[in-house]
Structure formats: C-alpha cells, structure tokens
C-alpha cells in the first residue's frame, strides 16, 4: 500500500470519526441495538432482506424482525408478504426427530418499518440438535426463501418454562416470559405467552386460561403488594403487572388454571434479576 493511500485512509477515518462526533441526531435506526441474524439479496430486483432479533436467540419468546428494502434506493418494502418457520432436527438414539416451536407470523409494523413476528424456541441448540430458521417472502408473483441455522441458548434466568399438565398428566405446556423486558423498581408490565403442543409440528397458543401470580424475593421471603394477575389478551398472550419494591433477585410464581377450572400447574416461576 502506498503511503498516500495510507494517508487517505487515515484522513477518511478521521472524517468518519469526526462525523460521529457531530451533534446531528443519528438517523432513525430501529435495529441499532439488535442482533442481525442474516442479510441477503431477495432475488427480487435489488431488494435485500435482513433478519433481526432483539438479542441473541434464546429459549423463550424471541421477537423477530424482517427488514426488506431496496439496497439501491433504500426504499422499504411494506406490501410484501412474509412468513417464518423453524425446525429443530435432533439426533437421538431412536433416530432423527424433528419439531417446530410456537410462532407468530410477521406483520408489517410501520413504526419500525419492518415485519414483526416471533419465535418461541422451546429448547436450546445442542451438539445433537440444530435449529433451522426459514423465511419465505412474496411480492406479487415473485417469491423466495431464505433458510439458515441459528444458535439458540438457554438464558441464565430461564425465559420459558415447560411442564406436563397436572390436570391430565399428558398435555405439554410451554410458558414464555414476554414482559418485563427491562425490569425496574415500581410497576412492571407482566406478560406471558402460554402454548401447548398438539404435535411435533403444531404448537398452538392457548386462550382463556386463568393465571395467578405472586412475586417473591426468595432470599428475603417477602413479596410485593398490588400485583395484577395477567389476563388473556389473545394470541396466547396474558398481560398483567408485577410490582418490585426493590432491586435484586425476584421470583414470580404462577398458578395456571385451564378453561375447565383445572389447575394445570400449581407453581411455575420466572426468575427476574435487576
């Protein structure tokens, strides 16, 4: 590399860094703090597709954002249709097993200019099992598919609990913690998603169940007052609020009853630390 080139590179980087220091508001970038899973041409003209998650994929409720835009004009596509699917392939002693997980199909959200959906991974990536993530998209009669593997990790404080119904001892349930994302002292939204497993390929949301919550600080053996039990708001989501009187390690206990008034779980819980 010639010395003049080095100087140019240096100058450019100085300019680049100085530009960052200006007080101009940064351009709106909803994906700034997110993790980009993949970026690829769609095959449709000059359109690109990018897939984002808020944080590295984890066992639990993951918001998934699809950004489709013209890589030349930067124009965002809003009238495409897109769908997501997941597939876990496991090598077991009994052969290969495949299953999916609860999903919420992407819908265009004009606020962040992206298609917003979710995937509730029910198990982590292991040596024996791999998650395949597939996005299908369509614009008029043009369509395409993007498939890639992702690594799903278990969070230190589990964001999903699964159990077999205590009522019938057979139905498998998955409960994901959706809110609070940023727990704080005071009143926090408390939102969970409840799903069941009909088959390896079907994990529908369940509606109309009753959830009773009770927060606790296990090391102090105390709780908090005035909590609001989550109620069913559709799509398997249940929303209420939980009060944290101080920072530290909290455990939110849940007792869930099905529509036949049978307790499916007496005490499942999420641990929340902040």
């Amino acid at each position: 590399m010639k010395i003049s080139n080095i100087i140019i590179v240096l100058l450019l980087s100085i300019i680049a860094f100085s530009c960052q220091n200006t007080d101009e508001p940064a351009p709106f970038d909803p994906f700034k703090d997110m993790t980009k899973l993949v970026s690829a041409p769609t095959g449709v003209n000059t359109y690109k597709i990018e897939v984002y998650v808020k944080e590295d994929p984890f066992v639990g409720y993951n918001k998934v954002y699809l950004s489709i835009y013209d890589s030349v004009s930067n124009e965002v596509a809003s009238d495409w249709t897109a769908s997501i699917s997941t597939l876990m392939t496991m090598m077991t002693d009994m052969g290969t097993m495949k299953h999916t997980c609860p999903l919420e199909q992407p819908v265009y959200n004009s606020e962040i200019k992206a298609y917003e959906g979710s995937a509730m991974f029910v198990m982590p990536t292991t040596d024996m099992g791999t998650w395949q993530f597939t996005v299908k998209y369509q614009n008029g009669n043009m369509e395409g598919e993007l498939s890639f593997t992702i690594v799903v990790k278990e969070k230190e404080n589990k964001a999903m609990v699964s159990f077999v119904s205590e009522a019938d001892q057979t139905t498998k349930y998955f409960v994901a913690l959706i809110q609070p994302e940023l727990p704080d002292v005071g009143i926090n939204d408390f939102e969970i998603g409840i799903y069941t497993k009909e088959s390896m390929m079907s994990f529908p949301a369940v509606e109309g169940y009753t959830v009773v919550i009770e927060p606790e600080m296990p090391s102090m053996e105390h709780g908090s007052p005035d909590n609001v039990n989550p109620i069913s708001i559709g799509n398997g989501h249940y929303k209420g609020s939980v009060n944290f009187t101080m920072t530290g390690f909290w455990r939110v206990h849940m007792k869930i009853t099905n529509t036949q008034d049978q307790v499916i779980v007496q005490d499942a819980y999420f641990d929340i630390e902040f």
Partner: protein
Amino acid sequence: MNKINFIPPTPSGYWEGSIYYKNIKMKNFVSLFLIGLWPALMLAQPSLSVQPKDSLRTYQLETVTVSNEAIDGVVKGTQSQLTTDNVEHFLKKLYGVDLINRGVYAAEPVYRGMSGERVPVTINNMKIFGACTDKMDPVNSYVSANNLKSIKVVKDAGSAESMNSTSGVIAFKTKMPVFSNQPKWSGQLGGGYRSVNAEYNGQFSTSYSAANWAIRSNGTYRKAENYVAGGGKEVLFSQYEKTNLAVSASSLLNEHTILNAGYIFDLAQNVGYPALPMDVSTARGNIYSVSMNNYVGNNQFEVKLYGSNILHVMDDSQRTVIMRMDMPGWSNTYGAILNWTKELEKNTWSTSLDYYINQSRAEMTMFPEGEIPMYMLTWPDVLKNSITIAFSNKRMLAENTSLALSAKIELGSNKIKDEFGVKQLQAIGILGVTGNEFVLPSVSTEFVQHISLNLDWNIMAAFGQRQGSVSEGFGYYLFNSQDNYDYIGDPRLATETTYRLETGLSGSGKKTDWSMQVFGYHIPNYIIGVIKEGYSPMTIGASGVKFYINLPYAQMVGFEGGLGYKLNKVLNFNTQVQYTYGVDSNDEPLPLLPPLKNTTQIDFNNSKWSVGVELRSALAQNNPRVGFGETATPGYSIFNLDVGYKFLISNTALQLSVQAKNLLDQYYWDHLDFNNIPSPGRSLNFSILISWK
C-alpha cells in the same frame, strides 16, 4: 447563691458563667458576671432592667442553664455532676423531659410522652435533622456537655426558637465567646474514667477574649467498651467512640453589631446499639453558622445563615446476621433566620422569618450470598422546603398580669428527588405521588398573673399543626425492632393538629422554689403506624407491615412539677415529679409513655467539697401499647452518689470527683428503653478537671 434570676437584655449568648469563677472566687463573681455581660451592658443599657416577674424566667446554674419556659426549671446539681455528666443528664433535669435509650449512646429526648418530629431539637435555633432512619442520631448528640450553655423547652408558637412542632422545641444553646476589656486566656482540661463500660474520656475548652473579638473552642473524646447491666451481665454491642469539637468566634464590628461564626464537628465511630439489630460504623456531623446581631436602641436584629451535613452509616458487620446489609443515610440542611425583636418597657415584639431546606436520603443494600445485591431507598431523597413567618407579642396588661400572643404560618413542600423513590411508591400502590405541600398555621397565647409575692398563676392555650416527618411521609420498609414491623410512610398523610391547654402555679421565695403544671392535649389526625394486611414485610422475620396513617385523634394529660428547698447555705433539697397519660381514639395507650417518675436530690456544696445524693424512681408502667411491642415495665429506684473536691493553686483550679451511679447495682430498665434493654449497673466514675484563667 445557687441560682441567679437573670434575663439578659441581649441574647443570652454573651454571658458565660463558670464553676471556677463562681465557687472559687465568690467575691469576684459579680464583677466577672458584669464582664461577661459587658457587651450587653454597653449595647443595651436602656433595657437592662429586671424583667417583670412572670413565667419567662431563665435560671442560670453553674455553667449550665436548664429551664422550661412556663415552668421554672428548678435545677440543682453538684460540681461533679456538672462537669462529669453527659448532655443527657441535663436533659433529664428539664421538667417533662425523658429519654429513649437504645444503648448508652445518644439518647433521644421525649417531652410529655412525645418525641421525634413532635418535639424537635434545635441547636442555637438551627434546624438540624438526623440522617438515621432508626433515630440513632438525635440532634442533642452533637452538643457536648462542656459546650452546653442552656437547654430550654420552647412552647410558644411564634418565637424565633420555635419551629414546626406541636408541643414544644427542645432548644439547645452552646457557649459563646465572651468579650473582655483586658485580653485574657482561659481554659479547662479534664479527663475521666467510668467503670461500667471502661470509658476513658478527655475534654478541653479554651477561650481567648479581647475587647472586640473573642474565640472559644472545646473538644471531647470518649471511648467505651460494652457496659455491664446491674447484676454483672455484659450488654453486647454497646461500645462507642466519639469525638466532638466546636469553635465559635465573635467579633464586635461596631458598638452595635456582633458577628459570630460557629462550627461543630462530631464524629462517632463503632457505636453499638444493643437494642437494635444494627450498629453504627460512622456518624458524622458538620454544623456551621454565621450570624450577625445588631442592637439599636430597643431593637435587636439577628441574621443567621447556617447549614448542617449529617452522615450516618449503619453497620451489621459485628453481628450474626442472615444477610449483610449497608444502610447509609444523609441529611443536609441549609437555612436562614431573620429576627427582629423590639423590647419596650412593658411590651416585647418579635417578628421572624425562617427559611430552610433539608434533603434526606437513606439507602439500603443487602448482600445475599451468591446473588446480586438488593437495593432500595429507605428515604427517597426527600427535599423539604419550608418558610415560616412568625410573630409574637408579650405585654404587661397591668402591674401583675401579662399576656403573650404568638402566631406563625409555615408554608412548605416535600418532593421526592430520586425517580427511583417515585417508582418504589408505585410498587406499593401509591400512584401519582411525588411529594406533598403544606400550610401549617400555629397560634398560642399565655396569660400570667402574679398573684402574690411568691405565687404566679399561668394558663396557656395553643393550636399547632405539623406535617409528617421524612419517615412518616416517605419511609420505605423501615424496620422497627421493638414491634417487629416494617414501617412505610405515606406522603398523603393529613397534617397532625394539636390543641393544648395547660395551667400551673409556681412560686419562689428565699428558701423555696416550686411549680406545678397540668396539661392536656387533643391531637386530631394523630400520626401513627398501623398494621396493613396484604403486605409482606421486607425484613426477614418481621411480623408484617405498618403504614403511617392518621388516627382520628389522640389525647394526653399529665402533670409535672418540682420543689427546691434551700435548707441552709450549703444544703439543697430538690425533687421533681412528672407523669403523662395518653390514649388514642381506639382507647389504646400511646407508645413510649413514661410512668410516674420522681427524682429527688440532696446536695451539699461548699467552697471545697460537694456531695450529692440522688434518688431516681419510676413507678411501674402497666399501660403498655402492646401493638407497639411494649410490655409492662416494673418500677425501679436508683441511687446515685457523687463527691467532689476542688482546690486552687494560684490561678489554676483543680477539681476531683467520684460518682457512684446506680449504687446498689440494680438490674432494671425504663419503660422508654428500647426493647427493654437493661440500664447500666453500678458505675464508678472518676474525673479530674483543671481550670485556669
């Protein structure tokens, strides 16, 4: 001449009596007295007249003045008591005053069964607020005995000394430097030992006086191990170490104006509180003021700027605990006082403007093993703004009657400065509250009739209001180990109102001094903690949560009085008695009510020897507030004995004293002692004090 009936025409701060002058050089006493009064004499000669005989008398006793306003403080003490005892000893001598002990360090004063915000403590009229959520640092702990000039219970509404209180202010005055025509140095140096807790103490004071400026400083140091209760049982976690320093300098700017600057530094370390689950690693106070007094004719103007910064760090590292905890607290106060007093022959007017801000913050961090720390704000950085306009007038109605009228109005607000605190409140269901505002009017009136030469009759009526304290309004899961509940404050509390009526008789003659006062209080919106169901306590093992609420009312009645009798030139007899009874609107007894108490003392004082025998007794208190964790308390009687000897070597006086406190080594506790913590057993206290001039 054990008692001087003396009302200085200028602020009482410019006279400094002392044991040395008074007892060693009795002949010169009057002249020294006049030297001490010199600025006052010079500046305010027209009003240097004997005050009309009424209830507003101040008694000067040795170096310490203790007085109640409406009731004469018939206070006696021997030499050794006055030089060896702590400030608490003098507080107890005030009629109606008692102490809450949480150990042997820094007792909290109670007046007529009321404490805390109901009876605030001031130092030189400065508002100071403790930084401890458990009231471990009462304001009186910042004044050491060798800096104490007077203590007074101020009960009227509108004087510069009064503040937002409903039943009285315990006003401490510290010693001020004294001007002198002939420049001179004087000082004291002393030390002592107490056997009951192996306390070593040292003290000094020194002053330099010149014609137009003067400076005074003093210091004390005390270090003690655990004390031993009656019968020989060691009370663990009762040690302490304390340093107190004070400097005060005055300058005569011109013949009408005195400038004063004062500073108090107080540092207590490793203070054990055996009655509480936590100790104190550091309690530090910095208190400072600048004031200017101006005397023109009958007018006296005072401007004062002051501040205090209190740090209080609780600590449980010496205790066996389930979980380690840090509980630091901060209280910073800044204020300004403007006062104008006009004294006419039969009429005294006083107007004052008083502004202060206080910021109180306390944190609690718990460290569970293997988990992230837990954190909360026990006082959520509460900023209090307060401005008070006060007015009082006292006039002679006729030859033998006087009437005093006082009124004030305080406007103020409390605001949570830390958003974290607002969120905490939301978490317990108090929504949309970030503070409160208040308007607090107070009015009082006192009528005094001089019935005969030796008999006065007084009657006083007062109306006052107070806003909840930081803990009552904003406290967050403050654990009270006595009733085993966590306390939560509520900023939405209504103001507590007090109606007070009291009347009394008093008399003083050549040989006797006596007074008897009866009082009654009706307190609507009485603030107290009550159990709130559905809330789980934060503290491990606590029984539940109490919220501060307004009860419909509480009522109190009681009496206090005393008799002093001078048997002859050297022998004095004194006895004082006090009692308070109080119930709330549910007919439950109020908490922390002292039972009937009596203190009787016989003193012998001559120029060389002093001997005092004191008997302190309390009847049983069988009316405990069970819901406050109180139990019935048996009565007790304690003997104290002290002997002092002093002699003079040229200009230096040497004073030796031996005290035997709790002579019979009784095992006892007072009803006001937190968690029934036993009082110290027999203690032999030795002290030596050298004074020179």
